[in-house]
């Protein structure tokens, strides 16, 4: 039997079992909505995190009394790191002026100083790591310790405690996200398998007749598999459409400036992966359901 014939039968089966088909699509849509909302959250949380991390500056305080050539050489060495985007030299005088500006009306306190206590320093802007992702906390830490190894460097600061805490919170969320996501995917397969089992139950007379008159397994199974794949794909597409509508509603009107990054929707690639995964789960659910019914 031609593939077109199997497709026709699958579509006909969906129409004939309209209620259960709708129920399956709604169930899959809800599951996809839950999973993709989670993915959207994790994805955007990562983006916010990346944007915050790309704003991080490493301050390198250098030892006093270095010659200009030594300072230039050090700047060159620091610039050679792949992760370093830009390096600015901040002379101690400029640093003091900056401090005075920041202190505002309390600045006169600094006037009493006999000598400038601040060291010369480099301010480093961090670029992207391999794969154009913002550097991880570990990568920043390695970069800082590599810079610290230069003999001319006195101290390196990059908001270690703040970054460490933030990174660990984000990692925790990500682990929880994956755990919940895995549970949802497992539940989705289970629910899908059972919903498809309902379809198989509804048509078990037909299956039995086909089996007893000598239909080959592929004749019986293929339309079911196609039907499940179609329902899986449709359900996922509807779930994503609902998510997109919700995303448009919430994030086009709400102020998201405080996150300092645009909240983006899932990439088309991610959407395709979700749709294909749902189709695969449909196939899997069908496989488990039919296995029970088609034992000879």
């Amino acid at each position, binding site marked *: *039997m031609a593939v077109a*014939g199997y497709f026709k039968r699958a579509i006909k089966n969906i129409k*004939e079992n309209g209620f259960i088909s709708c129920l399956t699509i709604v169930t899959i849509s809800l599951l996809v909505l839950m999973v993709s909302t989670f993915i959207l959250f994790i994805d955007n949380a990562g983006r916010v995190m990346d944007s915050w991390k790309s704003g991080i500056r490493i301050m390198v305080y250098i030892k006093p009394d270095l010659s200009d050539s030594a300072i230039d050489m050090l700047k060159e060495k620091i610039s050679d790191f792949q992760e370093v985007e830009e390096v600015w030299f901040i002379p101690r005088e400029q640093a003091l002026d900056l401090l005075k500006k920041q202190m505002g009306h309390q600045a006169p306190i600094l006037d009493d100083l006999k000598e400038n206590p601040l060291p010369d320093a480099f301010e480093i802007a961090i670029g992207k790591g391999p794969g154009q992702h913002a550097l991880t906390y570990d990568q920043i830490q390695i970069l800082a310790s590599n810079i610290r190894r230069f003999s001319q460097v006195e101290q390196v600061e990059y908001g270690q405690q703040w970054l460490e805490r933030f990174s660990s919170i984000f990692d925790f969320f990500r682990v929880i996200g994956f755990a919940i996501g895995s549970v949802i995917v497992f539940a989705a397969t289970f629910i899908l398998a059972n919903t498809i089992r309902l379809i198989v139950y509804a048509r078990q*007379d*037909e299956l*039995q*007749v*086909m*089996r*007893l*008159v*000598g*239909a*080959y*397994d592929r*004749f*019986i199974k293929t339309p079911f598999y196609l039907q499940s794949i179609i329902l899986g794909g449709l359900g996922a597409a509807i779930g994503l459409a609902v998510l997109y509508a919700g995303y448009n509603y919430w994030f086009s009107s709400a102020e998201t400036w405080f996150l300092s990054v645009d909240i983006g929707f899932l990439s088309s690639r991610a959407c395709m992966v979700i749709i294909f995964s749902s189709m695969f789960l449909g196939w899997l659910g069908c496989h488990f359901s039919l296995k029970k019914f088609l034992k*000879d």
Partner: protein
Amino acid sequence: MIVDENKNAVIRLFHVHRYYKKKKALVDINLDVTKNEFVFINGPSGAGKSTLLKLLYLEEQATRGHILVEGINLSRIKKKNIPDLRRKFGVIFQDYKLISTKTVYENIALVLEATGKKRREIPKKVRGVLKTVGMEGCEDAYPLTLSGGEQQRVAVARAVSVDPDIILADEPTGNLDNKSAGIILQLLNRFHMRGATVIVATHDLNLIRKKGGRVVNLKEGYINNVFFLEPPRTQWQWLDTLKEP
């Protein structure tokens, strides 16, 4: 080793047993059915008639013994070859097994499609078999809108639509009035005349009287008696042999 002595036999059972856990449904059944024979499997409820038919088209498997269908040993058949075996049979079920959500036409067309009939040949074939069983014009009716007799005629049409070599009918008149039962018997007889081997499982002695033929009488899973019943008018003297001792 099975020695094939009866070359005309299309079905051969050698010491066939079928147990459901400890319950003996069939015990040591030996039986040959020759080509184009009309055989009745008779006996009270629970005698093993339906089980015997189910073993032939492999809805169930024998616990012990060997069954040959057109030379194929069913105890050694590969799973992938079971559909081909089943295509040799046209099975008429006691409960009709018509799909209630499909029309009469779709019920028959599904079987034709399932057994590999070309799509363009299906409409003609369906109309043909419906005409044969006197159900032309009922293509669009749903089974539940038909009487029991009509449903069984559709079931017969479905069974014979695949031009089977062997027709198995399990209590084909079990739920029908005399007139409808007569029609079904006539139909079975017609396909028998066309060359099919027919095996009918029935407890209905009247049905057997009307047709005549070889009768295999089962009792509690054993073959109690095998005899030949003459066709109508000369058969009445045999009736006593069917009565319980």
